[in-house]
């Protein structure tokens, strides 16, 4: 390997790096910019490179002595060059300006022109050189950019949406004028302020987290929050953010597009309130119709309990009177001589009292009264269970018993038109339920079943249908089937029966909420399923499936 020597500059000849005149000329000829040399007056062309000849339509080999450069400029450009360019170049050595050439096809070509004044050894300017770059494309791009900016400006300034640009620290860089309309603050007021300032304290954490997430992932998501209006009121906004990166890919700012959804929220709340009210109306409606049946169911036994008790009271008085007669008779007998008049009196009394009737009737009256009391007790405890105060927490209930109570409460709805068959799976474990709402569903379905049967057999009591209610324990589900022998649901309306307000009952007879509520209670509140099987002429079976494991109440997705 020999000794290590320091690098010595290699001779140009050896490695071709020397800027030889040939090489420099080659560059001039190869560049796409126009390059020329002229006299100091910028008239006589000494040199024009290939790009220049192409542009101006001068043959590559043709002589230049016939051409004055001046005739290749439009008047305005020549004037600028003469008035400004040449003098500045002569004085300062260099001038740069926007001018133009007239191309061979007559087209005005915008250029950025550099004029250099070259001095000789004596310090006098010997000639001028020009380098001009065609700016047409550049202009076009700039124009496009300007237009695009203008467009975005128009969009942001006229958009209903709130558009804001904030830096990564949360300082506001830009706010669209819509901020003033929606929140009362002018863009000027907002510029430079902290963007979390007006956000509701309860919502800040959420926003900070979302902003942080956007910074990390570069992906924004929809968030909903409240912002204070300048007048102190709160507006609800829904926004989405995107990140803007600089040329190195770092996040430079965050663009937030927000929309005022206060009115929409209000409408949504209004709708929810209406829905709640409707549910309440439906509940009141069913309680109202039940009241008739329950009143009848209770008042009938109460009536005969009262009748019997009154009868017992009177009977006891009669028997007591007779008993006192017998008592006197006994005392008289004890004294030895029984007065025949007393015997006659007591006999008459006994004959008048219908003792045999009373002896037979009193135990029956007592037994029937006790039976009546049992009936009232059953109805009252069923009502108590049915009207289980609505809780928002699920409790484990015995479905069979809940169903039995509800059917008992609704007894008057079906007892004149249908026989009830229950087929309960006694192995069914306790099921987590909202008892009040679940009972309401069973009630709605039972009443519908009774109505379906009336549609089929009429209510003259000559023909009756059957309502079959069964429960089954199937894997992790409890299944309840409520089957009627009604006419079945016509194919044409099967799709619609769970829709709110859909009803086949005559006007004023149903709110059309029964099945809609049943559906929402089972599916949304219990995470279960509600479906039906129906066959025309055979009847309909509604099937409820409830999960045995407690499930979260399905929350409405918060945005």
């Amino acid at each position, binding site marked *: 390997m020999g000794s290590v020597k320091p690098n010595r500059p290699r001779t140009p000849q050896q490695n071709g790096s020397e800027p030889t005149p040939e090489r420099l000329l080659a560059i001039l000829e190869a560049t796409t910019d126009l390059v020329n040399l002229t006299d100091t007056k910028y008239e006589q062309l000494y040199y024009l490179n290939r790009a220049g000849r192409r542009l101006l339509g001068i043959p590559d080999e043709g002589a230049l002595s016939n051409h004055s450069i001046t005739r290749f400029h439009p008047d305005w450009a020549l004037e600028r060059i003469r008035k400004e360019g040449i003098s500045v170049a002569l004085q300062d050595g260099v001038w740069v300006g926007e001018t133009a050439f007239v191309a061979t096809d007559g087209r005005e070509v915008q250029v950025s022109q550099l004029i250099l004044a070259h001095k000789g050894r004596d310090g006098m300017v010997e000639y001028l050189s020009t380098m001009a770059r065609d700016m047409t494309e550049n202009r076009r791009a700039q124009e496009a950019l300007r237009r695009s900016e203008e467009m975005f400006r128009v969009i942001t300034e006229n958009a209903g949406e709130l558009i804001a640009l904030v830096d990564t620290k949360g300082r506001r860089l830009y706010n669209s004028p819509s901020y003033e309309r929606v929140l009362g603050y002018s863009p000027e007021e907002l510029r430079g302020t902290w963007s979390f300032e007006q956000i509701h304290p309860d919502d800040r954490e959420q926003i900070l987290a979302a902003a942080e997430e956007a910074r990390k992932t570069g992906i924004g998501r929809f968030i909903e929050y409240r912002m204070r209006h300048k007048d102190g009121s709160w507006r609800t906004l829904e926004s989405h953010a995107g990140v803007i990166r600089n040329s190195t890919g770092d996040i430079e700012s965050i663009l937030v597009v927000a929309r005022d959804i206060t009115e929409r929220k209000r409408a949504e709340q209004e709708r929810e309130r209406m829905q709640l009210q409707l549910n309440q109306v439906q509940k009141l409606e069913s309680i109202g119709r039940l*009241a*008739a*049946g329950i*009143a*009848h*169911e*209770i*008042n*009938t*036994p*109460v*009536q*005969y*309990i*009262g*009748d*019997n008790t*009154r*009868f017992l009271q009177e009977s006891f008085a009669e028997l007591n009177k007779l008993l006192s007669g017998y008592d006197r008779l006994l005392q008289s007998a004890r004294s030895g001589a029984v007065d025949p008049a007393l015997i006659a009196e007591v006999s008459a009394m006994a004959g008048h009292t219908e003792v045999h009737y009373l002896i037979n*009737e009193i135990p*029956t*009256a007592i037994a*029937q009264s006790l*039976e*009546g009391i049992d009936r009232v007790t059953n109805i009252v405890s069923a009502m108590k269970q049915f009207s289980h105060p609505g809780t928002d927490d699920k409790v484990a209930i015995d479905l069979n018993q809940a169903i039995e109570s509800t059917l008992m409460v609704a007894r*008057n709805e079906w*007892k*004149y038109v249908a026989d009830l068959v229950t087929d309960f799976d006694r192995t069914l474990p306790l099921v987590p339920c909202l008892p009040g709402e679940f009972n309401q569903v069973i009630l709605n379905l039972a009443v519908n079943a009774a109505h379906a049967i009336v549609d089929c057999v009429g209510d*003259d*009591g*000559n023909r009756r249908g059957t309502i079959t209610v069964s429960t089954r324990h199937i894997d992790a589900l409890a299944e309840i089937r409520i089957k009627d022998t009604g006419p079945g649901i016509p194919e044409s309306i099967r799709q619609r029966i769970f829709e709110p307000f859909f009803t086949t009952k005559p006007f004023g007879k149903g709110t059309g909420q029964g099945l809609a509520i049943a559906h929402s209670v089972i599916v949304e509140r219990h995470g279960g399923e509600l479906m039906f099987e129906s066959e025309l002429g055979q009847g309909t079976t509604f099937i409820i499936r409830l999960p045995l494991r407690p499930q979260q109440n399905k929350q409405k997705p918060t945005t």
Partner: protein
Amino acid sequence: MIGRILILDDEPLALDGLKRVLRPLAADWELLFASDARQALDWMSDRPVDLVLSDLLMPGMKGIEFLGRVRDQYPQTVRLILSGYIDRELLLRCATSAHRAVAKPCNPADLLAVLRRALSVITSIPTHTLRTAICRTDRLPTQPEIRRQLICSGDLSLDRASACVARDVGLAAIVLKLANSPVVQVAKQICSIPDAVACLGLDTVRSLAASATEPAWSAFTPDRLQKLWKHSLDTAMGAQLIARIEHVHQEILDEAFAAGLLHDAGKFLLVSNFPDQYSEAVRLAIEEKIELSEAEVRIFGAAHPKVGAALLDLWGLPASMLETVSMHHLPSGTCCHRFSALTAVHVANALIHERDDDSDCSPVSHVDPAHIGDLGLSARINTWRGAISDGTSKMENGKWPVPPSRP
């Protein structure tokens, strides 16, 4: 022949209970207990019954249908409801198919009292024909114009509705009947038309007006009908006027008006059912110069005050109104010794007859001197007479004094 009572309830235990408490009636009446409407109708076809007491909610034939059939087939039967639930809709449908309703549960003694009352009403009517006429009357005539006002008026207020009802004998009677039925859960008896209208509510009153059928009043010469209507309204107004002059309590004022309107209910009933005999009675009264009531007794076996009271009694109107209707010719026959609605109606009726001196309608009836003397008000008669002629002259101008309304 012993009378028959039929009790219908689908619940055997309820029937047993009723059997026990109605036993006291068994001495004078044959009691039939049916648990099915068909069976009940079968028994009735064997031999008619005098009174039925029926449940409403039953399997098969409903109580309402059963009562309707009884009304059509056996118009001489008193029809009562005993039901554990009577809502407004049901009530409207029962308005004319039953005379009266009792709500379950009721005190057995009260039930017995209602039955005894109804039985005493029908047994007090001497002829079968008249009894049938009373039992089958489910409405008194209603003026089509007033019905129209109630049904068609878009902005009907309770006050306006009361004013309409207060000008119509038929509507006033049925509104008072329903207001005193168990569907209106008011402890006191209702003798005031504005109270009755307020208790029932506009919808119910409207429905009653709408369901009123035009009865076959061809029997009435329109002239006689108009006169009877005018006399009823004049008496109501007059009674109210007199009561007001005597500064009585508002309740008596209202009752005087209502009882005044209904005081000739019996005359409506007799004229519509027996037009020819009624003309005969009028002729008899004029020819023989006897009171019309006496002529009515001769022809029908009972005079119109008694007939009207019997009808309203079956309908369950308050006892004080019944007394006013039945005794409006002779208040001294009652044990009432202070100024009452009866006094006001009696005086107004007598003074209006005196003023109108209507030979076709009836010979003049007089103010009962014993009653007024008993009250120490004999000196007031001229004041009342003056007020009546003042008040009625206003009526003839087509402007009725304001009918009663709630204070």
